[in-house]
């Protein structure tokens, strides 16, 4: 758990206080999008496994120690070491990135206008949900599920970077859409597999699939 252990053998950090962990932290400071463990490892000339351990350590530090190192617990009462920091390190959309802690949203929101996007309308949310669960999917199919034309909503979602073009359907030539990594970031999940299950919301599902497929208009 000692940071010093990571210093050995890596010329770039040798003798620099904080060592590999601090170096990783320094890199995290300049990211403008989530970085994968592989990217971080390559940049720092560490193994992916080493980076993973360091990331977990940083994440725990930022969240405040509560379990290990009893002597820290004592020191912690004075502030550092036990109470969480104002920011957190999260693994989202396949990469790691620093975020301000949600508890301070109201205060941070006074300073940061960017990224504070307007709420999506019900129509936009439903369209986004269908695309997220059925991707890649054409507008026609989304329309069929929602029962209304979705052209303008799809355009808005694309402009907001939540969905993108995913090529065309070989059969119909229709443009297919999928969600973006920005969507994953906004949802706080690392992949679409992290979306809540759709099936519990489908009671009496037996037989629906055949109707569904018959229903591509």
């Amino acid at each position: 758990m000692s940071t010093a252990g990571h210093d050995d053998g890596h010329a770039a950090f040798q003798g620099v206080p904080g060592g590999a962990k601090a170096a990783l932290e320094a890199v995290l400071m300049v990211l403008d999008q989530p970085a994968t463990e592989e990217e971080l490892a390559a940049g720092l000339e560490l193994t992916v496994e080493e980076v993973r351990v360091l990331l977990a350590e940083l994440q725990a530090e930022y969240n405040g120690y509560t379990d290990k190192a009893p002597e820290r617990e004592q020191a912690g009462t004075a502030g550092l070491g036990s109470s969480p920091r104002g920011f957190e390190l999260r693994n989202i959309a396949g990469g790691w990135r620093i975020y301000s802690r949600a508890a301070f949203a109201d205060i941070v929101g006074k300073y940061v206008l960017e990224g504070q996007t307007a709420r999506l309308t019900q129509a936009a949310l439903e369209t986004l949900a269908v695309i997220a669960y059925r991707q890649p999917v054409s507008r026609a199919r989304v329309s069929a599920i929602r029962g209304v034309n979705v052209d303008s909503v799809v355009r808005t979602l694309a402009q907001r970077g939540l969905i993108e073009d995913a090529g065309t359907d070989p059969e119909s030539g229709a443009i297919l859409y999928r969600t973006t990594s920005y969507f994953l970031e906004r949802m706080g999940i690392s992949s679409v597999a992290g979306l809540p299950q759709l099936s519990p919301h489908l009671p009496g599902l037996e037989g629906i699939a055949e109707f569904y497929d018959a229903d591509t208009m």
Partner: protein
Amino acid sequence: MAETKPAFEVRLANFTGPFDLLLGLIAKHQLDITEVAIASVTDEFIKYIRALQDLGEEWALDEASEFLVIAATLLDLKAARLLPAGEVESDEDIALLEARDLLFARLLQYKAFKQVAGLMGETLQQEGRRFPRQVALEEHFAAMLPDLVWKHTPEQFAALAAAALEPKAPRPTEVGLGHLHGGTVSVKEQAGILGRRLQQESPLTFRALTSDAESTLVVVARFLALLELYRDRAVAFDQVSPLADLAIHWTAGEREWSEENVSEEYEEQV
């Protein structure tokens, strides 16, 4: 969600589509979606479509038509329920049962998406309380960036701008008909047939207008054709009561309408 509101007040603008409206009505009557008492929601559904049409132009035809398709299905189902039990023997009855199951399946599917959309909305809002660190590159790093390669003339740049600014023609919503094989039926052609027939005799019922249809496809094409005619204000619909036959009146003059009016999107054969 509408389901949780004690006093259910329908404001059409609140509904994002026909399924949403149907779900709202079902919730209002506290019905189980799988055993919808069709009769109790059909009339209301029709009423809302009327109100919706009264709202005027803001509803595009393709939206209204989806409402109409569902209304028609509901009406058929309601009619079927009036049949004495146990008489589901004919092909028509079986088709009705299939239509019902299809409608329920679509409704259930929509309901599921509506629910997960609600969850997604909550998640997006919660996640919106975290702000990513996204700061400008520190100056000394920015200064290290390789010098920009700039290879084009102002004219080339202008051409690029022209292309980027050119309004992109919206690709029409494709109607996936790849699964439909068999004979080809043209909506335009059917609109012409209906137009000529209605100009000779009006009103006619939808039943009469489709009595000679050799296949379901032709019935569908004529239904679509009627919607087209309706949009062009060439016909009006009239129904004495929700269960009565649908009467179609010709409202355009003799030469005011021709099948050429039928929009491009139907030129391809159904």
